[in-house]
């Protein structure tokens, strides 16, 4: 039903691509991250709750929407979107043709997230799963306890008059944190300029977030010494950093599960908060789909494919043009011999 092409996953029976890497005629989009939603295609279809953010990211695009669970026919294929729990409006794509069912997971997680509808397992024959954190070392604590850690860190820094500078992805992670902090924050959370637009788009999409304040030109030093500041990782090493001198720095990511990764990047703190499924969730989800064939993409796909194959599933890895959110377009090498 789906083939792996240089432009991305292609469904011939419906003549559409899912998350294509290059411009195509019709693109079905699982979510608005830049490694899944690329500009330049003629028409886009996404789950309705994700439309506002997708349009914010691709202002030129012609975006149509479909409610979660609603089915449409495209060519010979019946298509529906189902919540993936990754970010706002993220969807798994279910394809059915002549009794055969495929599900493309996109990126997904099973942990609670106030900005995203919870993941819904969908029975299928073939499941295409992500594998960003597909190693048994990656297991996540409940988000509430991670949020507690962040709040405690902020409070201690505040009492020591030290800014709390929390790096996180601009789209998704930042708003998830803002939504979680709605009940905890005692003052507006300061945003790096790059985060303001997409955060507004979330509010426009009807998602309740903690109060925020964009850091104005010229604000620095004393004014931020008790603040929690969210910034993209790309702001590190730029002159912008002078606005928050002597900050305690932290990074919110599943990558922070490994101490060496945090120390290599010299963050004071690492908060293990991921929008991807951890190892037990990946295995549990695959089981729930009932799929007998699992195609694996992103991250540690070789490891997950081998692990599943040893348990009797038919598996293969799919190449991806992207390694995480590095954002470069060269293709992955063929799997090793």
């Amino acid at each position, binding site marked *: 039903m789906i083939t792996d092409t240089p432009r991305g996953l292609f469904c011939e029976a419906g003549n559409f691509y899912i998350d294509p890497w290059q411009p195509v005629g019709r693109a079905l989009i699982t979510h608005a991250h830049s490694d899944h939603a690329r500009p330049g295609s003629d028409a886009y279809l996404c789950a309705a709750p994700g439309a506002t953010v997708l349009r914010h990211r691709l202002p030129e695009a012609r975006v149509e929407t479909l409610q979660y669970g609603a089915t449409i026919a495209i060519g010979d294929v019946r298509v529906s979107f189902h919540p993936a729990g990754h970010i706002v409006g993220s969807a798994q794509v279910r394809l059915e043709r002549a009794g055969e069912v495929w599900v493309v997971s996109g990126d997904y997680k099973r942990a609670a997230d106030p900005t995203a509808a919870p993941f819904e397992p969908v029975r299928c024959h073939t499941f295409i799963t992500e594998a960003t954190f597909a*190693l*048994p*070392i990656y*297991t996540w604590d409940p988000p509430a306890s991670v949020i507690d850690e962040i709040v405690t860190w902020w409070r201690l820094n505040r009492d020591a008059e030290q800014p709390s500078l929390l790096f996180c992805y601009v789209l998704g992670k930042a708003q998830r944190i803002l939504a979680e902090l709605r009940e905890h924050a005692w003052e507006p959370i300061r945003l790096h300029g790059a985060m303001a637009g997409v955060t507004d788009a979330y509010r426009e999409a009807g998602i309740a977030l903690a109060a925020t304040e964009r850091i104005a030109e010229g604000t620095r030093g004393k004014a931020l010494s008790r603040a929690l500041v969210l910034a993209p990782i790309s702001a590190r090493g730029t002159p912008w950093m002078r606005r928050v001198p002597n900050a*305690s*720095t932290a990074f919110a990511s599943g*990558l922070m*599960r*490994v*101490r*060496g*990764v945090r*120390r*290599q990047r*010299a*963050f*004071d*703190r690492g908060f293990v908060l991921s929008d991807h499924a951890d190892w*037990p969730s990946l295995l549990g989800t695959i089981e729930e789909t009932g799929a007998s064939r699992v195609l694996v993409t992103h991250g*540690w796909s*070789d*490891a997950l494919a*081998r*692990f599943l194959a*040893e348990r009797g599933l038919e598996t293969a890895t799919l190449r991806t043009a992207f*390694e995480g959110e*590095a954002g*470069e377009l*060269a*293709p*992955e*090498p063929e799997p*090793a*011999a």
Partner: protein
Amino acid sequence: MKRFATLYEAIDRTTSTNAKVAALVEYFRSAPPADAAWAVYFLTGRRLKRLVPSAALREWAEMLTGVPEWLFGECYAAVGDGAELVALLLDALPHDEVEFDLPLASWVEDRLLPLAKTDIAGQRANVMRWWRVLPRTERFLLNKLLTGEFRVGVAQTLVVRALAEAAAIETTTVAARLMGDWTPSDDWFATVLAPATGGADASQPYPFFLASPLEDPLETLGARSDWFVEWKWDGIRAQLIRRAGQTWLWSRGEELITLRFPEIAAAATHLPDGTVLDGEVLAFREARPLPFSALQQRIGRQRQLAQIMRAVPVVFMAYDVLEQDGRDLRAEPLCVRRAALMQCVPHAGVLRMSSEVNEPTWDALATLRAESRARRVEGFILKRLSSPYGVGRKRGDWWKWKIDPLTIDAVLIYAQPGSGRRASLLTDYTFGVWDGDQLVPIAKAYSGLSNAEIDELDRWIRRHTRDRHGPVRVVEPVHVFELGFEAIAPSTRHRSGIAVRFPRMLRWRRDKGVSEADTLEALKRLMG
């Protein structure tokens, strides 16, 4: 162990050295002295003798979590630290039992050390039980203590600073007390924090004084006549102690190496009691050092000593005298100490003095320095004649004026993940040079690139991997790097037939194609 875990977390959660020292001071002031003694022991990089077989933790963790061995290997590539990896995997287990907290000293003395005399089944039962009851951080620390890789991002100098601050004494006093062999106990910790007085353990060496690399032009040093110049020998920096009728030879890594060099120990019996010499252990024959690789045979091997002693003779090249007739000379100027050295050490023999280089001008020295490689030395050491013997690497009085490294252009051929803080980044590189139409590996290097270059190369490697052998990726031969190294020697252990010393990356030669990389033949011609 809770208090120790809290200290660890405080240290681990900041990159500020002041905050680390503050946490250590707080701990040293409040912890039971026996616990604090063990904390110093571990934080200064000392380790317990191996308590359980090295593969045991992995096997037990695999048993408990059902993670197959190959997957454990994949995880290792992402984590780069066995103790941490096991702790991360164990998070999958329910944490449903608790026990009362035991102090660190009890953990070590009553639980860990007895493991060495326990059979494997007993070891396994104990460790698995501890894993069940310990919270996450303590479980990680337990694994660290069991595997002996206790590096937690705090340098020995910070521990010394914190102890000095906690006891309100000089850092040099603390540093001296931490040298040598000691057994952690409450009594020992009390002596570390005691007000400064004389009287120390006879085996105790002084902290080494280190030269800094000379970066500014020679003229900034002032008059040539203010300086003492000697060759920079390439061996094992060591301190030779003769006190109370006994001899100790300490390496700069604070390892006692007396037994590996019996000829030096024998020669030292002629030294007057109460003598401490700073110098270099060198493999030496016919007025010239042997390559460092020869000395390595003496470091590694303790069996068949008589045979290897004949094959690789050594000398102790004395630089300085730190103690004479039991009197600490370190505050005296170098010229006074050199005079004292001349009284007790001859110019030839197993124990010999490093002779002064007398070239009268900086220019003449620069000319002579060009002979360094032929003499198998690394350049000069410049010491201010008025300088005391300090502690650590304090800039200003002692400089090393090293010769430029040898360089070659080599091709990146393999890459694998680094360890520790470089886990999950491909930072361990292997380089090759041309042997006919083949690239043969000649050096591994880890250092010399900026973080941005490491990131860029990491991304490139992941997309241009040709083959994988476990964690090692065979990459497309595309990128050329200029490598620097100190020396090159024949080797039977390497496929290329040569071994290079201290290889590191000097530059990423983006301007060069692989065909312009050097050949093995050219490399062999560099051999001195």
